[in-house]
């Protein structure tokens, strides 16, 4: 993104003059006070919102010029994990995780799906319905769904917000493993302990939204 700005109302931008490039295999944290625009920033990254100024490109394509099918294609290359990720409650967990494949018309490789469930430690919950999952299980299921298409970029919006420390560490470990396999990861969080724990294992850059602008904040931690 180059000189990107965004505002929900025309006169008062929430984000201004932001420039950032996420390289393959990079690991970023995005911090800032509540209401600073972290979630908005992530929504811009997966084209749920369009910038009101500046330029945004993803995988070599101008996001502002993408058709709706183009946006769908972009989202298949970006895995998103929300703090309160929504599932289709009428489908079992395994089918929810495989949903991106299903709607893309791709065949579900059952052994690979089994491995993915094992990786997020949900093998025993494959046939459970989403409302039966705990908060931590939901987050791991969300992560599994986000990565099943093998996306190039993983965005996580306060992924550990509802989790205890052990569960947060487990989820962080999964994200670090994904990063080591070459995926770019961007996590919006205000949990400094999580950032410190990650920095002990990966080369993570910390960005902060302050005064509507994006700043590097790594030196402060």
């Amino acid at each position, binding site marked *: 993104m180059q000189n990107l700005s965004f505002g929900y109302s025309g006169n008062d931008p929430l984000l201004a003059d932001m420039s950032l490039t996420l390289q393959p295999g990079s690991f970023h944290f995005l911090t800032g006070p509540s209401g600073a625009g972290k979630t908005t920033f992530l929504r811009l990254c997966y084209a749920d919102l369009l910038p009101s100024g500046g330029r945004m490109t993803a995988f070599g394509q101008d996001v502002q010029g993408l*058709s709706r099918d183009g946006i769908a294609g972009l989202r298949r290359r970006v895995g998103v994990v929300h703090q309160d990720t929504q599932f289709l409650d009428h489908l079992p967990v395994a089918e929810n995780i495989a949903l991106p494949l299903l*709607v893309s018309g791709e065949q579900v490789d059952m052994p690979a799906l089994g491995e993915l469930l094992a990786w997020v430690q949900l093998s025993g919950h494959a046939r459970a319905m989403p409302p039966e999952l705990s908060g931590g299980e939901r987050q791991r299921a969300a992560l599994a769904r986000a990565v099943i*298409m093998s996306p190039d970029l993983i965005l996580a919006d306060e992924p550990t917000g509802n989790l205890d420390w052990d569960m947060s560490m487990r989820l962080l470990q999964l994200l670090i493993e994904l990063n080591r396999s070459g995926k770019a990861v961007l996590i919006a969080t205000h949990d400094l302990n999580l950032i410190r724990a990650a920095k002990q294992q990966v080369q993570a850059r910390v960005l902060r939204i302050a005064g509507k602008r994006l700043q590097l904040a790594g030196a402060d931690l």
Partner: protein
Amino acid sequence: MKKADLKSLDLATLWRGLTRPDPAGTDRVVPPTGFTAQLTVFSAAAMAFLAVFALALALATGRLAERWSSELAQTVTVRISAPEDQIDEQTLTVMEALKTTPGIAEARLLPDDEVEGLLEPWFGPDVPVEALPVPRLIEITEAAEGFDAEALRLRLEGEAPGAVLDDHTRWRQPLVSAANRLRVLGLVSLLLIAAASGAMITLAAKAALAANGQVIRVLRLIGARDITIATAFVRRFTRRAAMGAAGGTALGMAAIWALPAMDQAGSFLTGLGFQGWGWLWSLLIPPLAAAIGFVATRWAALKMLREVR
């Protein structure tokens, strides 16, 4: 936010998506909506049932109007009532006059047995026609160009005072007019039924789509294309409309088939049904209902998807 472009949802693409098999079970992304589904099927069935009757009415009144119009246009009767010593002479005079009247294709004096047949419903089978002062009846078949009824009436008055020209206009014309109006009403009813079906299916589809707004947002978030989402909903509602309409049509056809036959009721009631190939018209109702379901759900899906990025 930029206005959503939904070019991928053109009718041809959606139709291909609809007719293609769904081995992956993509339709399962739409949650089952029991009550809405039952209502859609029931509404489609009820509308198809009514459509069968409206169609039968339109076809029957069409036939009736055509028959009466045809009879009105082609047959006219001359009735001759005269004293016994004059009736043969007046009959001959009338026959001569008719032969020389332009626009008359044929004039036929009804023989006694036919007259007896006409009187049979009133007097029973053993009518002694020769013993009764029964008027002579001449049936006239009109030529395509028609004849001047008023001029013929005046001529008969002068040459055969006992002859009365009866062209049936007085009583047939209002009936033909009524039959034609009934046919129009039948066709209007069909259009209204189609429009009401469309409205009901649209409402049901809109309700289902609105109730599944979260599902649609999740699907978009994970990279589902509009065509995938719309097809799942359109396929479901089109099937429901077609299934309901097939059931309603079958019931409607059975009900029409069970109507009394001509020998058990008046000819008009018997006419309220299908004849020959007319039955096949009813078979168009389920595909038409499916088409209405398809168009209505597509419209509702387009509206809903415009609200989700």
